[in-house]
């Protein structure tokens, strides 16, 4: 295994997004903060409690999740896609970096960005609603698994995409609907049938609810079940990206 190669790619990915912090960290932080202010304050006037939590507290885990999901996905997808467009993917393909090394570098870098934005969102939210951390290990697990899954999906989108239009397909047509149907701003238990059942097939629900359990101490699903489902999702996504990368699909002529 090319440990130094993998480490180099990881450090490069982190430095890449840190070169433009306004675009990669500050901008998403502002948008999630706006979500907090607009949704939190406008709705909390009418909805005082959801699932036994004050509404302003209730939406914090979901907003942290949004910061993580969007930025982890954006980092790996845009970074890898841009290498294809710029032609610098040649450097990666010629170098002794196998699928494992490429994944570790891109996913690692994307996870750092997701977690940095998620962490800062949490810090900003704490200013509005106070800091709450009931189960640190559970929180850490769901932060980690959420950033991991979206980083992997970002890679998959970048491998598949050949045009700018295609790279926007996932965030617009897949992620955005699933995010808003993922229980960030409401409890999926309150959805009318059959949407509450359909929601069970949305992995984002388990990410949001897992973080809700870790941060606030209660959720509508057992974190063990949610955690296990997400571990399976992560394993399948990892396997798919590994196989696709090894095949050279849309990466090699």
């Amino acid at each position: 295994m090319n440990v130094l190669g993998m480490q180099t790619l990881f450090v490069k990915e982190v430095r890449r997004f840190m070169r433009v912090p306004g675009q990669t960290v500050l901008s998403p932080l502002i948008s999630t903060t706006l979500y907090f202010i607009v949704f939190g304050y406008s709705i909390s006037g009418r909805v005082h409690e959801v699932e036994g939590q004050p509404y302003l507290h209730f939406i914090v885990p979901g907003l942290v999740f949004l910061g993580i999901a969007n930025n982890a996905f954006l980092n790996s997808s845009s970074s890898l896609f841009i290498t294809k467009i710029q032609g610098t993917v040649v450097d990666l393909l010629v170098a002794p970096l196998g699928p494992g090394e490429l994944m570790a570098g891109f996913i690692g870098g994307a996870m750092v960005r997701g977690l940095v934005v998620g962490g800062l969102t949490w810090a900003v939210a704490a200013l509005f609603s106070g800091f709450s951390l009931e189960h640190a290990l559970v929180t850490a697990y769901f932060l980690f698994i959420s950033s991991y899954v979206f980083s992997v999906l970002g890679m998959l989108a970048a491998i598949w995409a050949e045009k700018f239009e295609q790279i926007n397909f996932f965030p617009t047509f897949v992620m955005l609907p699933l995010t808003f149907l993922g229980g960030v701003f409401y409890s999926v238990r309150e959805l009318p049938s059959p949407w509450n059942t359909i929601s069970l097939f949305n992995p984002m629900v388990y990410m949001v609810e897992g973080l809700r359990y870790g941060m606030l101490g209660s959720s509508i699903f057992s974190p063990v079940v949610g955690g296990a489902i997400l571990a399976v999702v992560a394993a399948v996504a990892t396997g798919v990206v590994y196989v696709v990368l090894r095949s050279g699909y849309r990466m090699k002529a």
Partner: protein
Amino acid sequence: MSEPPSPALELQGLSKRYGNFTALQSVDLSIRPGEIFALLGPNGAGKTTLIGSVCGLVRKTAGTIRVFGRDLDADPVGPRYELGLVPQEINFDPFFTVAESLRIQQGYYGRPRDDARVDEVLTALNLQGKKDSLTRALSGGMKRRLLIAKALVHKPRLVFLDEPTAGVDVELRRDLWTYVRKLASEGTTIVLTTHYLEEAEELADRVGIINEGRLLMVEDKAALLRRFGEKRLVVTFATPLPALPEAGQRFAARLSDDGRTLTYVERDGCAPAGDLLRALYAAGLPIADVETRRSRLEDVLIEVLRGRPSASAA
């Protein structure tokens, strides 16, 4: 007796098809360690596809590729530590400086940071002054130099230069030639494609000619020039000759321009042009000017691509 060293690169039956289009057709090729090999052919002949197949940019359809004896099918990653590629298309990562780009490249190849090597390569390619510049601020020629530096900074044993001097000035071209010769003298194997046949003629030990995905021939450059090459002797007379002189008839020369110009084409196996010239002087003819021109690789390439019968003897 010791075993001969493995070829730096060995291709057997290498083929690549894109749908119905055949880009490479069962190419067999063996490149010796330490040689400079020029792969020549027109646009779309398959040169870049061949290089891409070895460097992991192209998925081959069939055949075997061995790098220093190691089969890429059995180990697709390990042999790549030995490879360097200067791609045809300019690429650069705008987020990093020139020196950072080279350090990243070292890391990709599992080499610890080596600033001395970075400086050495930058100096060789006349980029030392741009070390801390962002790559996007470089001129086109400088970006090309950076590509070359990136391909060499990890000290590869087999380097592919795919049109390395396209669009660069004469000075850099000369600098690069000097550096390529130095690398080869140190044992690096170089595979070069170029549109500047002068470049191949200047550098290559052996030449391969490829067209429509087929490797038409591989030959020692000097032998190739001897075999296909010709020397043309053109003698201009101060006063027109009424007829082809006796010496000219013996050598099957041609008189033209109303008796003012005599032309003789010396091919492999013909009498030397010098003998004809001596005979013309001995005959006391009014010679005003003598011009000779040796055919170049360019002429040979055209001959081979036109399918001169003896050209198929690869």
